[in-house]
C-alpha cells in the first residue's frame, strides 16, 4: 500500500501538507497562548529573552558552523566577510551595501583561493 502511495502524484502533496501543518501548528499554538500574555509581565520579558537568545545562537551557528553548501567554505573567509560587512554597516548605516560587500568578499575569496 505505502509503496503504491509513494509512486503516486498524491505522495509529494501529502508530504507538503504535513510539513505545512507541522510548521503552522507552532504558529497557531502561539496565537492561542499569546492572548493571555501581558507585554508588561515578567513572563513576556523572559519569553523575549528566550527568543533573542535563540536567534542569536542560530545566526552565530550559521556563520561559525553552517550546515549545507556553506560547510565547504573556510571559516576564516566567512569571518572576514562578516567582519567587513559589520564594518561597512557601522561606517555607512547602509544595510544593502554592507551585505553586498560581505557577500562580495566571500565570493572573491572563494574564487581566488
Amino acid at each position, binding site marked *: 500500500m505505502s509503496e503504491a502511495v509513494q509512486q503516486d502524484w498524491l505522495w*509529494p*502533496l501529502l*508530504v*507538503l501538507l504535513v*510539513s*505545512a*501543518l*507541522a*510548521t503552522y*501548528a*507552532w*504558529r497557531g*499554538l*502561539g496565537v492561542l*497562548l*499569546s*492572548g493571555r*500574555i501581558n*507585554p508588561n509581565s*515578567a513572563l513576556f*520579558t*523572559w*519569553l*523575549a*529573552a*528566550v*527568543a*533573542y*537568545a*535563540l*536567534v*542569536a*545562537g*542560530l*545566526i*552565530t551557528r*550559521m556563520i*561559525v*558552523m553552517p550546515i*549545507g*553548501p*556553506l560547510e*565547504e*567554505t573556510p571559516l576564516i573567509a*566567512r569571518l572576514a*566577510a*562578516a567582519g567587513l560587512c*559589520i564594518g561597512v*554597516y557601522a561606517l555607512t*548605516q547602509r*544595510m*544593502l551595501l554592507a*551585505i553586498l560587500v*560581505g*557577500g*562580495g568578499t*566571500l*565570493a*572573491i575569496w*572563494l574564487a581566488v583561493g
Partner: protein
Amino acid sequence: MSLPPSYPDLAFPDERAAFHGGLRYAFGAPAIAIGASFLGFGALVRESGLSLWHGLISTATTWALPGQVAMVELYAVGAGLVAIALAVGASATRLLPMVLTLLPLMRQPGRPRWHYYAASHLIALTGWAVTMRLGPGLPPPQRLPFFLGFTLILWLTTLAGTAIGYLLPDVLPTAVTLALVFLTPLYFTLLFMEDLRGKRKPVALACGALLGPPLFLLSPDWSLILTGLLGGSLAYVLTRKVPS
C-alpha cells in the same frame, strides 16, 4: 524608500499608510537577503526530483526555510510521513517564542481573532525581528498592518527566489552561489546589531551567541531550543532588575 533603518519612532498617518510603509521597508536588504536564501531551496527542490509547483507550494504554505530543507531532504531519501512531520515540526519549534512575543504587541481590541491566526503564518525570523523593534514605536493599530506589508513582500520574494533557483540552476559560478546563500546570515547579523542599543536585548543576544555553537556540537537537534531556554533564562536573571 528612505525610511531610516533603525529609529524606533516611525509614525504613519493611518493604518493604510502603515501597511504601505511595511511594503516599502521590505525593499532592499531584507528582500534581497531573504530571496537569495530561497534560490538555494529552489535548486534543492529540482535536485530532489520534485516539480517547481511543489517548491512553490512548500514556500507558500510552510514558509520556514529550515523546515522546508528538511522536508525536501527527507522526501529525497524516501522517509515516511511521521519522520518528516517530526523533523519539520522540531525545526519549527523556534517559531513559538517568536509568536508569543510578537502577538501581544500587535493585538488590538475589537479585531477579529482570525486576523491573528492568518497573520501568524507570516511570522518568521525577519518579520519578527523588525516588528519587535519598530512595532513599539508605532501606535498599536498600525503594528499589524506594518507587519503584514513587510512580510507580504518577503513572502512574494521567497516565491520568486524559489522559482528562479529551480529554473536557473548552475547559471552562476559556485563562489557567487555560496556568497548569495551567505547574504542571509550577514543580513541577520546586521538586523540584530540594531538591537544592541537596548538594555536587555544585548545580554540575551550575547548569551545566545556564546551558547549556540557549543550546544550545537553537543546536540544538533535540540541545540536551538536549548540555546533559547538556557541563554534566555540566564539573560533574564542577569537583567531582571534593569528597566526595559
